[in-house]
């Protein structure tokens, strides 16, 4: 279970540009939930992910994983339990290293990086099988540097790499936004498959309302640092794109657009 309790986050505190993003923000995510998060730009979606992962510090509040407060834990330590896929496909892989070397790196997460040889030959088959599940033919290109792959292929690898070792939470930060519609579809299907197979608790920020409605078992809409829609279970099944669009329009009118 992941809990955000009374989170306060100000940008530029003490200056004329002071902006309050979160004021007493609360969110509880139960184990096994696949939460889609939507909202306009600046609504605090990505900031929320950054706060969970530790990329940005909070001013007040608690972040708890199964009652363990991680608010003061540095980002890299939190990543033991968390896997994150970014919007930019280049963020999840090392471009000058080969597919094989990238897989070996990912496979060693949570273990020590000592003076043992980096790539275990006994694991070749395991890596090939993993890559084969992507259906991109990468299993035959083990010695190719990842930098020469396309964005979609890299994103697929990034997804595979973060889910290779056991993690408790999968954080998806608009991970299909930089891809063409067909590749985005493919990555989304892969995501759904791996989340269901490994039963990982997932938080997905997306601007694609169709994905938000179709995938996952909970939907959250954020606006100005607050959750304004929170649907799960049956009420999510009955929730449609039009309902989200209506809410978007309502917000725009309120803001005077």
């Amino acid at each position, binding site marked *: 279970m992941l809990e955000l309790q009374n989170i306060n986050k100000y940008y530029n505190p003490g200056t004329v540009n002071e902006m309050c993003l979160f004021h007493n923000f609360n969110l509880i995510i139960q184990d096994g939930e696949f939460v889609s998060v939507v909202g306009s730009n600046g609504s605090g979606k990505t900031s929320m992910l950054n706060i969970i992962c530790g990329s940005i510090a909070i001013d007040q509040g608690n972040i708890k994983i199964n009652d363990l407060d991680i608010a003061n834990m*540095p*980002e*890299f*330590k939190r*990543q*033991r339990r968390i*896997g*994150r896929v*970014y919007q*930019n496909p*280049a*963020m*999840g*892989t*090392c*471009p*000058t*290293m080969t597919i094989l*070397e990238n897989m*070996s*790196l*990912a496979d*060693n*997460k*949570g273990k*020590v*990086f*000592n*003076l*043992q*040889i*980096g*790539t275990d030959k006994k694991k070749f088959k395991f890596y090939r099988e993993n890559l084969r599940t992507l259906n991109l033919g990468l299993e035959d290109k083990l010695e190719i540097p990842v*930098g020469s792959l396309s964005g979609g292929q890299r994103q697929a690898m990034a997804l595979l790499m*973060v889910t290779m070792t056991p993690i408790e939470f999968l954080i998806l930060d608009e991970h299909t936004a930089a891809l063409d519609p067909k590749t985005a579809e493919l990555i989304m299907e892969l995501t759904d498959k791996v989340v269901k197979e490994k039963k990982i608790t997932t938080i997905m920020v997306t601007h694609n309302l169709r994905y938000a409605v179709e995938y996952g078992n909970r939907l959250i809409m954020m606006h100005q640092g607050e959750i304004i829609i929170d649907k799960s279970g049956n009420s999510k099944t009955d929730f449609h794109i039009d309902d989200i669009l209506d809410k978007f329009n309502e917000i725009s009118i309120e803001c005077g657009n």
Partner: protein
Amino acid sequence: MSYIATIIIGILEEGLVYAILALGIYITYKILDFPDLSVDGTFPLGGAVTVVLIIAGINPILTLFISFLAGAVAGILTGIIHVKLKVRDLLSGIIMMTALYSINLRIAGRANVPIFSKETIFENKTLDSLVPESFQPFLVLAILLIIVAFMKLLLDLYLRTKSGYLLRAVGDNDTLVTSLAKDKGTVKIIGLAVANAFVALAGSVYAQKSGFFEISTGTGAMVIGLASVIIGTNLFKKVPYVKATTAVIVGSILYKTCVAAAISLGMETSDMKLVTAVLFLIILIMSGDRKRRVKKSA
């Protein structure tokens, strides 16, 4: 031996000594993407440590290891200044380089310390008894070849270990290192330690070969190493099966050839730093490496 052969051997010797330095700079510049100026201090650091130890009667081979460790310590300090105290990479190196200037003088006692009559890795009784007279002119070259080959293979091997993978990853995409639940700062410190250890070792070999410690050898060490790295890696960019470490060694020898050519054209020893700078500029322009490399990953 003919005049030309002597010159060629001289160039090869110089090139190989600086190849060890270039291997160190390859780690910081190409792998870590860190412009590490502390090199200008760690190169003479190796020399200072070596002459003091040799005068004290320590085994010359042992001085290589001690210099290596001294360089590693200096690299760790540069890393701590950058990572823990959050000083910009270029400035961390400059701070360390400046501090090391005085530290080197403290260690050596003065700016120039000769060790001409002492035993070194190139001149000692064991070698005299083993090596036949006819091989004497090639002795220094042979010893250098062994050291350079050993260090190159050691680096190649290290880069294939798990720790080496992490080092390559941190220069490539440090977000991934964080994703692997590793502190990228620590990895950078390790990289700087290894790099400066190589540089100090080069300084130790240089001092033993030339027979003295001289504080000014550090000035421009970074530029010489960097020029070698850029020549080597650009020349062999499209050649398959040539490792970057091999390319860097060849680059260093080529660079020393260019310098020798400049001298034979009538330049004096006092012009050396000017030759170094101009050559480096020409190499930068020709290689197209002068712009801050935009990360291919972006």
